[in-house]
């Protein structure tokens, strides 16, 4: 389904007032978001920069035309993937699938970024306590890079993520049909990192 054929009214209703006004007036941008392992285009980014506080959300379009917000809703993602079908044949595809899963389902006011080293962190000025935590974190062990490898029933992945003001190591197990189970360990919290406002 191309951007020009998605049901705009359904998108506007799904995202609600604020972003929905821009969808109807045309100021909001709709962009297809490819998901590795998923053949049809079923995920779209809806973004309106013409607001005092810009807004964006990812929405899923079901084969029957239903539209649901996927941002901050991992259950909706799982339901959509089960509906449209996922086929993950290799570790690279699994890695791409999980990266899109993380971006699409993050909370709209939570920055989630994969990092491979402290140089990837966009530091901001902090309070004395935040600066102390930053120094402690930087003096700690190096940040591990991504891991993506085949496992018995699919793929095993590990990523280090910036999640808001936190850095964490996430572990994912992904089945070949796209089901994701995850856990994480917090490496540092309350760091002087950007705040979505």
């Amino acid at each position, binding site marked *: 389904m191309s951007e020009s054929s998605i049901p705009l009214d359904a998108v506007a209703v799904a995202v*609600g007032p604020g972003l929905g006004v821009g969808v109807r007036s045309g100021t909001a941008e709709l962009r297809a978001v490819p998901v590795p392992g998923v053949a049809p285009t079923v995920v779209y980014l809806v973004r309106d*920069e013409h607001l*005092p*506080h810009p*807004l*964006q959300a990812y929405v899923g379009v079901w084969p029957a035309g239903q539209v649901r917000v996927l941002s*901050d809703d991992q259950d909706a993602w799982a339901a959509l993937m089960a509906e449209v079908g996922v086929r993950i044949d290799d570790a690279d595809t699994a890695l791409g699938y999980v990266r899109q899963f993380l971006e699409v389902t993050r909370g*709209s006011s939570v920055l989630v970024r994969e990092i491979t080293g402290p140089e990837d962190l966009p530091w901001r000025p902090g309070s004395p306590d935040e600066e102390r935590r930053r120094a402690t974190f930087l003096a700690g062990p190096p940040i591990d890079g991504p891991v993506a490898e085949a496992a018995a029933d699919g793929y095993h992945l590990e990523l280090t993520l910036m999640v808001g003001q936190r850095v964490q190591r996430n572990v994912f197990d992904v089945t070949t049909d796209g089901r994701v189970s995850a856990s994480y360990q917090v490496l540092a919290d309350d760091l002087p990192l950007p*705040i979505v406002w």
Partner: protein
Amino acid sequence: MRVARDDGKRPVEDAHRPRVHRPDLVGGTAAELARLQQSAGNRAVAAHLDRLAVQRHLAPSMPEEVGEPAATTPSLAGPTPDQALTPGTGTGTGTGTTGAPAAPSRQAQIYTKLNTTDTGRWALGVIDKWKIPVDYHFAGVGSFHQGGKIFVNQSLSIDAAAMVTLHEAQHANTYKSGTQADVNALSRAAYITKMIADEAEAVVRQIEGSVPMVSRGSSLAGSGLTQGLIDRYRTAFYAKRDELEAADPTMTRAEINRRCRIHTRDVEVTSWFHDGTFVTSTGGAANVTYSQHYGNEWDRIRNPPSPAPGGAG
């Protein structure tokens, strides 16, 4: 309360005074203000900020500012769908009041929380004065003020929803007062400055109302505020307090607090919209600050993108 003056005209009497070179600022970044302060002094800074002022305050928020008594009832905004649709128990067809009382609605819980602080009562006063509809069950994206209405996401806790209301009430008050920045009328720098001025005031409102709530056990989670931001605010506030006390030991506490609030808002909190502390949700890895965002918006108004070939996208 200051009155906004946005026409950029200088007072007539200026023409009769000796000409003093002053930096020709139309903006108000922390660096620009510091330069103005160094070259022309504090009065020039104050006069400059006066020209840029929106609906802002010189002292901590008080409900009397919007004509409200010190205590405000949760029902002051009148019946809302939230209250009207609160489910009852039983069949609801009799005249008695059997059964357990219904739990307070989400709105009532939030209003009760707001009623515990001066700034919260100020926010309730704004909602009452302007008859602001507030949707505390908003199921869409984010929480925001839009066109005289406030939308607070249903996913927020009672604590976070109350704290967000403090912030959005400031924007609603500015909008209803007609002092909102006009992107079509202002220069680029003045537009950025005025938009950020309202944001900074809203952040200060939020801090002033949230700190006493947190001291009584409320959580900042989900409110946008962090303890780090509150600590930065306090550090700047207390540094200014020490400076004022040292300079004039006879200055009253109220005057010190008034000046500290203005200074902290206009220097420390304002810097957060420029220095990468606050970024937009849409900027991705670019970490778009609000000074960049408002500048981009001003540019877009004057140079709209060309339509895509072949029609709508």
